[in-house]
């Protein structure tokens, strides 16, 4: 009885090992293979610049939550801070500040900007349902929708609630 239970229990393991080996046939190289190669190994560049601002320095420039919206800080890494906006317990948007010193192309895209919030260039990225401004030519502030109820107008309204002038004075 016990022996047969044991066998029964082992069966899925044996089967999955067998499947694993049979699945290991040759594959096409991944479209991320080049990035993988460039970012691994001894001389690979760091993903985050050494002199990037500490993520915690960005927290105080985020807007507070207000009527119906709860702000929940969710990530704080070097050069990056993120908070969620939740409504009725559901995540409707994410807000972030990042230091483009690690990703120069992120700052470069604002050269094509045609509108502004205050003196800060604004870019709308429709495929990402995301709106961003570039502060001090360096800090990117973004709001991205995670729910259809949170519109482009909402994104701009929340961007205006950031303390962008305060962020521009960050040394």
């Amino acid at each position, binding site marked *: 009885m*016990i022996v047969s*239970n*044991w066998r*029964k*229990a082992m069966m*899925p*393991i044996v089967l*999955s090992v067998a499947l694993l080996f049979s699945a290991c046939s040759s594959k096409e190289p*991944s*479209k*991320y293979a080049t*990035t*993988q190669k460039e*970012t*691994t190994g001894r001389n*690979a560049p*760091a*993903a*985050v610049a050494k002199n990037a601002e500490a*993520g*915690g320095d960005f*927290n*105080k420039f985020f807007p507070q939550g207000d009527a119906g919206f709860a702000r*929940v*800080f*969710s*990530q*704080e*890494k*070097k*050069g*990056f*801070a*993120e*908070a*969620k906006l*939740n409504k009725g317990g559901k*995540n409707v948007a*994410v807000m*972030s500040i*990042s230091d*483009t010193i*690690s*990703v120069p*192309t*992120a700052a470069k895209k604002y050269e094509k900007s045609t509108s502004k919030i205050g003196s800060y260039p604004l870019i709308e*990225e429709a*495929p*990402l*349902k*995301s709106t961003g401004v570039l502060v001090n030519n360096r800090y*990117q502030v*973004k709001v*991205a*929708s*995670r729910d259809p109820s949170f519109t482009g107008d909402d994104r701009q309204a929340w961007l205006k609630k950031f303390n962008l002038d305060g962020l521009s004075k960050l040394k």
Partner: protein
Amino acid sequence: MSKSIFELVDDLPTGGLTVMSLNALDFAIPGQWQNTVGFDNTIKVVTGTDDPEYVQAIGERAVALYNDKGEGYQTAMWLYNTVDSGSRLLGAAAMANKVGEKFAMLGFLGNITPKAETAQTIDLSVKLVAEIVAYCQINGIPGDSVGDFLAGLGDYGGESLMRMCALVCFDGLIPLGPDFIGMVMDKMGGMSPGELEGNQTFKGIKDQIPGGDTGGQLGFITESFGNVSGWMSDFVSSRGLSPEMIVGNMRNFVEISDDKLDYLGAFLDVSTNYYVHTGTQTLARRLIERAAAEM
């Protein structure tokens, strides 16, 4: 060489015992967990875009972030992997222990395997600590106050909530019964550093647990479990969770009788890897969110 993040996410299974076991817990957190697999697919699900250029750019940034060891993502992945494999060894030991109790001729096994309850107690507590340490490796310590940090923890959803649900059900309720929270707190409170030192799961991630020496680490683990016990207790009572309920939902794919519940816990231990599975999903989601925000 360790696997790339896109391979890890692409290789997540859509079926098998882990996925079936987690799906069986849907009744506890209805609709919260979808088994999102595939790297590009996860990018689409998280950001809502299927524009190939954006998907590629986000994917490349996420790959670079994961590969930068200083960013902590690989440590988190290692933690998820290590507590799952530690748990597998425990599963095998617990089975041996049960057999040892049943058959006198194998009784000697009881001397070389830990008492199932103590081992399971440590396993559950260490897994919980691994979750806290992995959370900090992935997300940093968000916000400016302890309250912000706890709010972040309390905001668990999707695969992270499923992982905690599985921890409560598969490592708490099923192997230790409905009073597992009080039982674990009692046992951890009376445990010696030596007992902890002998545990495989603890040994696996010892270097990553705050507290200095084993005594300090025991204190940290006990305190952490105490801090999360309120959340766990609410989780169980607000959903009316019981071992019978969970087993009832699992009977669709596991043949098990009521007097063999201990075997079910051990069986799940050796045959599933829910920490790695949902941990990979959590990690991918956070990386992708960050990559999309930074580009």
